[in-house]
């Protein structure tokens, strides 16, 4: 177990000139011992690069990786005592399930009785006890991935366990189960778990702290609630939530905050000039005409998703999505409604970064 500090950048090309040459832009980050972290971002955002830098499969082109303050930048995965689970199941074909699970322990010369006990315990957690003596190669893809997970978790003394989109090949029903299992294992074993995924639900349900990444940059680190309530970057607002945060182009001048021709009173002191108003569809409310902080909108689509309606409406070409209860019968396609966009949950962005 260890605290991991990163202060580095990585480019796969030699002599990077522009930001786009970097797979990982210069960043500083700390992973506390025993935490459950998720690296979340779209494909190609640098999250796997970051994971491989931590595990030691990749040496960063500049900067350091510290484990408990010790420089481990050039250490191998073995020296770092890291466990990693990959996107696709990696199993040893010729071994049984038990031998597969015991392999990391066997290579570290564990005594046989302790090894059997530990393998039994892990198999129990993964509900694989009945398959221990089966040949691993004959199993289904998700059973194989469970073995990979088990091999990652079998060593109790690891610095951290890194997961690289480990549930890609697992079917949705089992995904929920395994994610809950991982959470439970985290509580029982107190291991540092770092989980890479492009699925926000996976990240938000798994982790205490989520690192949102895009284009080689970690744009926000925070708890799931932070990411939802106060996205520090418009990318986070967009990426987290379904549908994502609404952004309205606005202008701040002496008279206040203006969206189109409407002046909305702003509670916070905002910088002058162009600004973006961000509000979650969950917080957009239906209100009476001419209410302060509301805008008239033309409804273009009403989508019934069962528990509520997703209403798409626009104000002078700027679209807003709202999550409204299903009994708001007055909201119909083609009608004009007033929607509240100012409130306690409204955020303001300048140059994509949060300002208020």
């Amino acid at each position, binding site marked *: 177990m260890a605290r991991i500090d990163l202060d580095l950048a990585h480019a796969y090309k030699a002599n990077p000139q522009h930001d786009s040459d970097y797979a990982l832009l210069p960043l500083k980050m700390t992973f506390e011992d025993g935490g459950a972290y998720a690296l979340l971002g779209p494909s190609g955002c640098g999250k796997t690069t970051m994971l491989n830098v931590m595990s030691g499969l990749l040496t960063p082109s500049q900067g350091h990786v510290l484990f408990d303050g010790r420089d481990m930048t050039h250490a191998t995965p*073995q020296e770092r005592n890291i466990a990693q689970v990959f996107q696709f199941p990696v199993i*040893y*074909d*010729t071994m049984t399930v038990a031998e597969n699970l015991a392999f990391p322990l066997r290579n570290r010369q564990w005594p046989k009785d302790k090894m059997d006990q530990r393998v039994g315990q892990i198999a129990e957690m993964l509900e694989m006890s009945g398959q221990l003596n089966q040949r691993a*190669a004959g199993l289904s893809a998700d059973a194989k991935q469970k073995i990979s997970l088990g091999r990652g978790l079998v060593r109790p003394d690891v610095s951290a366990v890194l997961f690289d989109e480990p549930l890609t090949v697992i079917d949705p029903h089992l995904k929920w189960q395994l994610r809950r299992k991982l959470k439970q294992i985290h509580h029982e074993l107190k291991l540092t778990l770092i989980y890479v995924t492009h699925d926000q639900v996976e990240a938000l349900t798994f982790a205490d702290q989520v690192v949102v990444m895009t284009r080689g940059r970690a744009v926000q680190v925070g708890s799931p609630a932070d990411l939802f309530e106060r996205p520090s970057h418009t990318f986070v607002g967009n990426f987290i939530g379904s549908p994502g945060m609404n952004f309205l182009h606005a202008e701040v001048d002496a008279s206040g905050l203006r969206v189109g021709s409407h002046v909305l009173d702003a509670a916070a002191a905002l910088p002058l000039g162009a600004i973006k108003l961000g509000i979650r569809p969950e917080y957009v409310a239906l209100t009476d005409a001419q209410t302060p902080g509301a805008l008239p909108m033309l409804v273009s689509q009403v989508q019934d998703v069962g528990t509520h309606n997703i209403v798409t409406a626009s104000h002078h070409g700027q679209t807003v999505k709202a999550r409204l209860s299903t009994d708001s019968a007055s909201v119909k396609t083609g009608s004009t409604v007033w929607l509240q966009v100012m409130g306690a949950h409204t955020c303001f962005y300048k140059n994509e970064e949060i300002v208020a």
Partner: protein
Amino acid sequence: MSTTTKPVNQKAWFLILPVLLCVAFSAILPLMVVVNYSVQDIISTDRRVFVGTEWFAAIMRDEELHGALLRQLIYSFSVLAVELPLGILLALSMPATGWKSSAVLVIVSLSLLIPWNVVGTIWQIFGRTDIGLMGAALQGMGIAYNYTGNANHAWFTVLLMDVWHWTPLVALLGYAGLRSIPDAYYQAASIDGASKFDVFRFVQLPKMRGVLVIAVLLRFMDSFMIYTEPFVLTGGGPGNSTTFLSQFLTQKAVGQFDLGPAAAFSLIYFLIILLFCFVLYNWMQQVGTEPKEGGHA
């Protein structure tokens, strides 16, 4: 699983006619000619007598044939025993990327491009003690090497020639197998703390199994039918020390014009190869894991 009844149209049979004709002319008819010969005594081109299974009975008791068969088996298994480990070792030591890998691939496959009879000729000269590099070198080291006179020397030279000629095939197949292993396997093994040997034993070898089955089958069948190279190099001698099955057969059929016994033996020869391949294939599938993965060569 359609439940609608389809109209019966037997014209579809015409579609397989071309294949049927090709296979008939290339395989079935020649084989049937051999079967025909095997039950007759061909006295001259226009005189023949039906003898039933007499040739089969005779050939099974033929001491010379037993000798040739034994030599053949020892030779083929020696070929496998040397070429397989050597080929795997070569494949493991070949560079994976860059211009070096291309260069090595070309160099390794050179010997595969040489026709059989040329290989025989090359080694015939190579082994000569007066002008051949190997022969003269061995002579110079004080070894009385003489592949035309010493049966053991002849046998080893034929084996060495086959190893030189065909180990690259095993190496290329193994190389292809190695390149198809995803990086994650090596990374996982490194994280699991596996030693280099563990990686070979638990990752590389099992993943190469599919291509190695192909290599074993190809090398076994080819070496079991070897003809041209020993024929050019030693002519089956000295004595009959390098007379393998196909040469024995040729001597019978063409040399002595014993078409009946030769045909009977051809059939037995054919069945032996079929049997060995069947056994080897099934055994190697068993040694590995599920049969599905065996086919990715």
